[in-house]
């Protein structure tokens, strides 16, 4: 399963090299399609792949982002511990007592905090703030730490994907390695239509990769493939679940960054309904995706988002259902087969 390989790799925004190399390996390895894919990168690190299909069709861009949220080391204390800042949106409450890998050498480290015994009653009542947390790589002092890491090094969650329950998996960075996995599958299988795939960088820090990728590819239609929030969990009223695991890909009508092209959105719904493929609405108008940057590229691009539902995104452990990933591939394939006429 491509997802396992991809999700286990570190790839915090601005440091997507490992993921990019792994995708190139998958696309040119033993499963490589015939005719081979045309692959290039740009100066930001986007991976741009052209897939030749049976028919030309309009210029279509499929995009998934390679980067994940993580941390960046800012200073090294005299005591050898590392101070850090978040890269992308991280809830500080998820960080305490987690394990990360730091820097190019993937040095293991833990996120420490003051022991509960030493905290005053008032302190215990408040959630940890980022300033209170630090990274401990077991270095005895600043010099020892500097031999292993340096300010500006990235740190990513140290999480390996494992199967969970019945058809579920647990792992990190499903936002958006799930999308990357979908895109890899689509590139490796026969395609009805030709398309450009953009594995983008820096989505989590403002969709910066997608902006330049879309400028460069000049698509007429774009589909952004995301891992999105699911809150089908206790404590959330049914009205506010956003998406639910096991109900198929989620279609966005809008988010903070874009309003789906109404016809493209409707077309995806129609394709799903006609083919009897599962789909659901992403019942939330917040959050941002690469769609915002793509839709406003140059003279404008008709854009929609198809997302794989994931619980607990932007934490070290997300949960998703494998069937949703497969259903997402099927929906996009069916959309191609429908001819995507807008």
């Amino acid at each position, binding site marked *: 399963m491509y997802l396992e390989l991809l999700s286990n790799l570190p790839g915090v*925004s*601005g*440091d997507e*090299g490992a993921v*990019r190399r792994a995708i190139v390996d998958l696309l040119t390895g033993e499963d490589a399609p015939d005719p081979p894919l045309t692959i*290039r*990168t*740009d*100066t*930001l*690190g*986007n991976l741009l792949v052209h897939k030749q299909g049976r028919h030309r069709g309009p210029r279509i861009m499929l995009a998934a982002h390679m980067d994940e949220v993580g*941390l*960046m*080391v*800012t*200073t090294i204390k005299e005591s050898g511990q590392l*101070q850090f*800042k*978040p*890269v*992308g949106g991280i809830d500080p409450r998820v960080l305490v007592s987690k394990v990360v890998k730091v820097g190019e050498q993937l040095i293991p480290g833990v996120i420490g905090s003051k022991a509960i015994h030493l905290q005053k009653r008032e302190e215990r009542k408040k959630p940890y703030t980022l*300033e209170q947390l630090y990274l401990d790589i077991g270095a005895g002092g600043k010099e020892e730490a500097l031999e292993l890491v*340096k*300010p*500006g090094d990235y740190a990513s969650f140290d999480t390996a994907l494992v199967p969970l329950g019945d058809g579920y998996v647990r792992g990190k960075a499903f936002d958006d390695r799930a999308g990357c996995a979908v895109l890899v599958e689509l590139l490796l299988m026969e395609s009805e239509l030709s398309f450009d795939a953009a594995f983008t*960088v*820096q989505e989590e*820090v*403002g969709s*910066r990769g997608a*902006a*330049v990728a879309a*400028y*460069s590819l000049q698509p007429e239609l774009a589909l952004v493939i995301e891992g999105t929030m699911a809150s089908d969990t206790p404590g959330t009223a049914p009205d506010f679940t956003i998406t639910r695991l096991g109900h198929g890909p989620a279609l966005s009508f809008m988010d903070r960054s874009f309003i789906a092209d109404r016809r493209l959105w409707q077309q995806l719904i129609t394709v799903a309904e006609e083919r009897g493929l599962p789909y659901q609405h992403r019942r939330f108008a917040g959050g941002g995706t690469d769609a915002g940057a793509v839709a406003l590229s140059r003279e404008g691009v008709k854009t929609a988002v198809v997302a794989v539902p994931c619980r607990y995104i932007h934490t070290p452990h997300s949960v998703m259902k494998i069937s949703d990933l497969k259903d997402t591939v099927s929906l996009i394939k069916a959309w191609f087969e429908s001819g995507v006429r807008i």
Partner: protein
Amino acid sequence: MDKEQVKDMLEILTGAVGVSGDEREPAEITAGYLEPYVTRLHRDSFGNVIGFKEGTGGPGAPSLLVAAHIDEIGAMVSRLEKGFVRFSAVGGLDPRTLLGQAVEIHGRRRCRGVIGATPPHLLTEKERKKELRIEDLFIDLGMDPEGVEAQIRVGDYISLVRPLLTMAGGNIASGKALDNRAGVVAMIVCAAELVDIRHFCRIYFVGTAQEEVGVRGAIVASYGLSPDLAVAIDVTHGLSPGVAEEDGFGLGEGPVVGVGPNFHPRLVERVRTVAREYCLPYQVEPVPGPASTDSRAIQVSREGIPGILLSIPLRYMHSTVETLNLDDVLLTGRLLAGFARSIDTDLVEGLTCI
């Protein structure tokens, strides 16, 4: 160039008025300083000033954009009120630093004024404890309402007044608009250094407009010039009491190289190598999110323009007592010149294969 020349240029440049949106004065002065070192000079319709210098590689060689913003924070008249002037911030003014500040309003003629507020004696205990907001402040021009109305109208620019001050035997300078006239001077130092240094790449020296209101000049300049790579020069926070160690940098310890998603890792590596080669000190600033400088805009222009950020440490940013070490300005210019010299076709072609 030496420290004395750096100080003189800073004195003249910070004495100029260039609130975002009307950068004519600093643009003219910058153009004057660049003129001996470049082959072409022009101002675009947005207000950016652009100097171009050919390299030994000729027209086919890679092009480098050097961007330093020439605008400064200030204010604009928003309303006249019984002879007093209410104003609106242009850029990130801290209203708490403004009470008692000398200003000039650029109306039909230049008018001197001072920023006032209701005196503390007339406030309640509770009101005194609240921070000052822009709405609480006004400008007193010492004129009667008719005089004010004859000279001033809504939309007139307001600049802060503070002559440059040197301290510590001439090493430290303090004043207004050192953010980012210091960066502009570093760019000029670089241009001067390159007279005696052969460089392969073609260089655009750009004084960008409207950085303080959303890096706007850099957006249009980088699109228009479409260079192969870019360096932004700006200021960053200096260490002072109350500034966390991770947020501040030592004055006199050299330029600060940004690392993070906005900067190309190969170019960062290159500038560090150049610094070691020339024995120039430098510091490193991790920038995990979008940089608050022109770098942010340039990187995502067109199909992407790889670049780096060099910053000069500066204390009390966005006040009229911004304070820096002149050596840092000089060193930044020299490091930039060394970086420019090191650019060749191989470096640029290698930037996509990361």
